[in-house]
């Protein structure tokens, strides 16, 4: 067990927790905006996957991680546009369309990867980090939390930004009305369809960047199906956090930390079934968020298409 008590190992575990948590944070925050506006965005997994592919291609071809994130956001938004068109504009079933978009994204990214990369499997170089003065020198915590790619800090800053938007801006009010009482929003002269479309596109951008982070920084390459359900975990985080961005951050970090804990237990040679160990992240997040988030509620019109004049 002594290998668990070295600075290098503890730093690596904590850094791994952050790396695993950031895509979930982005996906969860994006989903939260969509749900707040009344759209249950099941297609977020597909948006992450397309974002992972487009983000990787851009970073690999240009050598710029930032262009990778921009392309990932664009890729996610492209899938989100379909979601908005079919579900918000045409009012089709959000769950069916979401699943179809995810399956389609899996197929197309696997095909594109096969055509382009299946004989070369190009890999990106290690990322440059931005150490935060003083904080990055704290043992273990410093390198794991405060010596990261700048995008990690931006992802965390999205949390207070969204809190501000939800609580202090007219846009936040519009989003909430679109999810709770869309007819009231419509009566106030604000387009429900436009509000929901904007929310879904924002979700696509966030999910796409989450996928890009997973491919470019988490793995350093793109592999078909590599998101492996991260989008669905993002949906769970968003639903359990029920409109509070801070809880999404907490849930994502808890999930990442639990995954790091599973690695620690295994490397330490703890002889309990791996399935039990692997259950820890899911059980921990669900238990905490169910216990502490049970008084919050989901939007009343979540998952329901809005048609003007219909009750």
């Amino acid at each position: 067990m002594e290998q668990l008590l070295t600075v290098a190992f503890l730093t690596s575990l904590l850094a791994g927790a952050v790396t695993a948590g950031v895509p979930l944070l982005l996906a969860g925050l994006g989903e939260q905006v969509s749900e707040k506006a009344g759209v249950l965005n099941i297609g977020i997994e597909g948006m992450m996957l397309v974002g992972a592919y487009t983000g990787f291609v851009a970073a690999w071809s240009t050598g710029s991680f930032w262009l990778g994130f921009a392309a990932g956001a664009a890729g996610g938004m492209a899938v989100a546009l379909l979601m908005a068109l079919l579900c918000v504009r045409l009012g089709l079933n959000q769950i069916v369309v979401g699943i179809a978009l995810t399956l389609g994204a899996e197929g197309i990214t696997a095909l594109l990867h096969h055509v382009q990369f299946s004989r070369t499997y190009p890999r990106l170089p290690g990322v440059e980090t931005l150490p935060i003065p003083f904080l990055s020198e704290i043992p273990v915590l410093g390198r794991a939390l405060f010596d990261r790619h700048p995008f990690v800090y931006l992802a965390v800053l999205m949390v207070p930004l969204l809190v501000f938007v939800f609580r202090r801006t007219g846009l936040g009010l519009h989003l909430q009305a679109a999810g709770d009482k869309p007819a009231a929003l419509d009566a106030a002269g604000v387009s429900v369809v436009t509000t929901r479309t904007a929310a879904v596109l924002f979700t696509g951008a966030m999910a796409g960047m989450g996928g890009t982070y997973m491919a470019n920084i988490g793995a350093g390459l793109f592999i078909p199906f590599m998101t492996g359900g991260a989008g669905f975990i993002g949906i769970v985080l968003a639903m359990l956090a029920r409109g509070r961005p801070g809880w999404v951050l907490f849930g994502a970090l808890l999930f990442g930390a639990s995954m790091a804990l599973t690695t620690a237990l295994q490397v330490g040679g703890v002889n309990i079934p791996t399935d039990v160990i692997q259950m820890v992240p899911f059980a921990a997040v669900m238990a905490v968020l169910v216990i502490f988030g049970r008084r919050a509620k989901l939007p009343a019109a979540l998952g329901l298409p809005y048609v003007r004049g219909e009750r």
Partner: protein
Amino acid sequence: MSVRRYTIPAVAAALLVGLSTASAQTKVESIAILVPEQGTDYGWNQQGVDSARAAAEAAGVELIPAEGLGYGDIRPTLRELAADGVGLMIAHASGYNTAAPEIAEETGVPVAIVDSPDKLKPGLVADYTLSGHEGAYLAGRLAAKTTDTGTVGIVVSGEPPSWNSHSAAFADGVKAEDDSVKVLYAVIGPAAYSDAAGGKRVTESVIAAGADVIFGQGNGSSFGMIQAVETTPATDGSDVMFIDVIGDKSELDTGHLLSSVMWDMTPVYTAMIEDLEDGTFGTKSYAISIADDSVKLLKTPQIPDATWDELMALRQDIIDGKITVEPVFDAQAVRAKMANVSAD
């Protein structure tokens, strides 16, 4: 009179036996293989497709590869292939071993599945739970000869029987070579075969815990492991080396690929086609072995010639029976073994 009395029933019996044998025997015209990822992963999927192609060509039958099917429900694909008239469907993923036997029952088209030796059904369901444990044992000996930190790691994307037997044999090989070398063991996830980010994250942690040789078993996730090996120095500052399984990733190597426990499934698929035509399909298990080179270690420039010669001598000892390597397929038994070797 007596001759006639016995001859007629004998001829009738012979005819019946002949007819029943003829009905059990099948001329295979085409076979299909279904794989979850593209057959270009330098690993499980590619070896499956390439081996099936080689077996089909040798037997003069058509191969229909169905690639990139993912890890979900493949029943529609199986039904479509059955309707197309294939003579055998090879369901090349442990996640397919529930759906494939169901469709075999439904359509009457034989299937081959993995990791389910208890599901054999004559004429309908065969299992090819393969194990390259003898090769993994040699890989363990190689890892122990190579490590400078005195710690090696095993990273796996799941715990299917084949991976388990590799892991156990690798640990046995390490300990047989040098009992003081520690073996660390980590599973990325329950079925994290394409989780490249998880592969990188877990491998980085195992390296941080002291390992400087990683025995990695995954499909797409193994590329994440390789990325970790290439970008993370060992705790003593030296390069980390990687031992792969099933395929040959030499074309992609940047100097970190130490070896690979390579599989050739051509003899297995060839035997399946023969068994279908003989009417014995689904009555026995299939195996690969270092004796016929269907399991072998990959020689890379990173292995010194003297070390390679020692490994080949050990290989011969296994073939001659001087060294016995037993496969351990059960995940619980592997974990118990790993708890012991990591504590040493």
